């Protein structure tokens, strides 16, 4: 495979070592992380979105579902900081509640994909042979699908609803996790301590869980951090196409799509939720880049 600059195809040059994060290691990581201004900004954005999602009930000035709390399609005013949409719902409240869907889908989808992909990558890399060939050929097949197209196909199969959106988004990210994990397992597998464990009679699953996994974890965490923004973009894309959580759920992608029809008379309906989405994505990308540079300097560009 010639994917020379694609981070997920990079084989491990050296097994990444993860020391148990004692105070000194953690502090060193934090110092390295804090030097990166973009990453700190990203962390701040991420925390802000988390607070929005967790405290939506406290922060939102109105109920996001109640129509006619103001005139329809009203631009931002003191009563409605982000204006109102075509049903006269308060946009700020909808944006704040929208953070919930975005975060839950983004994080849960990536965790699911990580769980599946890492397990497959561990098994494929450690056992090799036919199991490896079978798993990785399926992963190659999945990898050939552009993520949004796979998600669209999954939504066609499963039907609508938040749970299905999470699964549809997760499926697209399984293959990258499996590839990264397998590449690193192949490198770690040759280490003398694995050989020693095997000779000592430790079973395969135990070796994988106790000795292989901890040593390939750093690049996987980096990968996960980098993928959350992609998962949120995919979810917004599905919602924009009308394949996301059904209305009237407050979702950023659907809000942007609804506002499209009023772009001439009420441009704020479409543009303001998009700003929330964009700031979140920029923040997550900067945070992901920062984590990559901190935890996994060999992937640094």
């Amino acid at each position, binding site marked *: *495979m*010639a*994917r*020379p*600059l*694609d981070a997920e195809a990079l084989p491990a040059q050296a097994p990444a070592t993860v020391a148990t994060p004692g105070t000194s290691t953690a502090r060193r990581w934090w110092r390295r992380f804090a030097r990166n201004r*973009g990453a700190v900004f990203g962390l701040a954005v991420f925390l802000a979105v988390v607070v929005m999602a967790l405290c939506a009930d406290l922060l939102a000035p109105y109920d996001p579902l109640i129509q006619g709390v103001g005139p329809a399609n009203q631009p931002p005013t003191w009563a409605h900081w982000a204006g109102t949409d075509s049903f006269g719902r308060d946009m700020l409240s909808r944006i704040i509640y929208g953070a919930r869907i975005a975060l839950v889908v983004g994080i849960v989808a990536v965790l699911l994909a990580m769980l599946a992909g890492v397990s497959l990558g561990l098994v494929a890399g450690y056992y090799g042979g036919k199991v490896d060939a079978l798993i990785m*050929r*399926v992963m*190659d*097949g*999945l990898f*050939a*699908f*552009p*993520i*949004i*197209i796979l998600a*669209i*196909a*999954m*939504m*066609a*199969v499963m*039907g609508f609803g938040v749970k299905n959106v999470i699964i549809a988004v997760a499926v697209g990210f399984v293959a990258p996790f499996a590839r990264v994990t397998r590449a690193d397992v192949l490198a770690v597998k040759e280490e003398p301590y694995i050989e020693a464990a095997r000779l000592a009679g430790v079973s395969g699953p135990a070796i994988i869980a106790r000795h292989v996994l901890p040593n390939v974890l750093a690049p996987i965490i980096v990968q996960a951090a980098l993928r959350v*923004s992609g998962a949120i*973009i995919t979810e*917004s*894309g599905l919602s*924009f*196409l*009308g*394949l996301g959580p059904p209305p009237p759920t407050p979702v950023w*992608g659907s809000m*942007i*799509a609804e*506002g*499209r029809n009023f*772009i*001439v008379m009420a*441009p704020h309906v*479409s*543009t303001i939720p*998009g700003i929330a*989405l*964009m700031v979140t*994505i*920029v923040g997550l*990308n*900067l945070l992901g880049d920062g984590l990559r540079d901190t935890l996994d300097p060999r992937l640094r*560009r």
Partner: protein
Amino acid sequence: MLRFFLSRIGQTLAVLFTVSVIIFVLMRLIPGDPVLMMLGDDFTQEAYQRLRAKLGFDRSVVTQYVIWLQAILRGDFGDSYLNHERVSRLVWDAFLPTLSLVVASMLVGTLVAVPSGIVAAMRKDSAWDWGSMGFAIFVYSMPSFWKGIVLIWIFSVHLRWFPAVGYVHPWENFWEGMWRLVLPAITLGTFFSGLVARIIRSSLLEVLDQDYIKAARARGVRRAALVYRHALANALIPVVTVIGLQFGTLLGGAVLTETVFGIPGMGRLTVAAILNRDYAIVQGAILVGVFAVVVVNLAVDLTYAFLNPRIRVA
């Protein structure tokens, strides 16, 4: 060289096989009986059995897959159950606008990315570097569908420079077609440029760090000459690959972008088909889309091997 080509082609066939199995399985997982859907409300038990046998649903799954694959290989994707048009025809008609959007976006994106990536690498850590990389991550992070709406708002609603929606094949009416592609291509192309500019920068920095460049610098070769004559060609080879391999990402992005601009492409076709439960179209569109991605990736890999003999050994 020949061996590399053959093994790459073999890998591609394997991927296409897996892709076909994945799509076949997905389509079988859709709830509901396709035979019932084709028959409509009024039918006899006998007619049901006859159609079921005709479609091969009474045979084993493997046989069904073989029958299905044979039809696909003949280019027979079935009929749309709503208006009974050939799916192959519908998909092809939708594929052309999407493809022209992807190609136009690649052009726009490359035109923006190459200069900004080079400047960023040549003046590393300067304001130029920060500015162009900041711009890159900014446009890369903007969801394409939202960017499209903002561009429509500025350039169509306010300035009235470009039409907001609509599509004309550039090969039927060149200027009109290109004119209508400008905003969609900027929407998708800037996303692409953000990605490529970052890769050009890192690739160029890596090459500039190599011994032969240091040697040239020691000989007193001027900095500009160093970059343009010695480093750039080597730095751009992997970038060409990355540009090609992003075809799939761009195709996915095009699905969203064309929805914004009312381009009658693959995205609109597929989404409408999903909402109408017209699964023959969904299947045909996804097959053709993924097939295109796999074939482009193969072409890119082979071109790369041709440009860079070092890879062939691997």
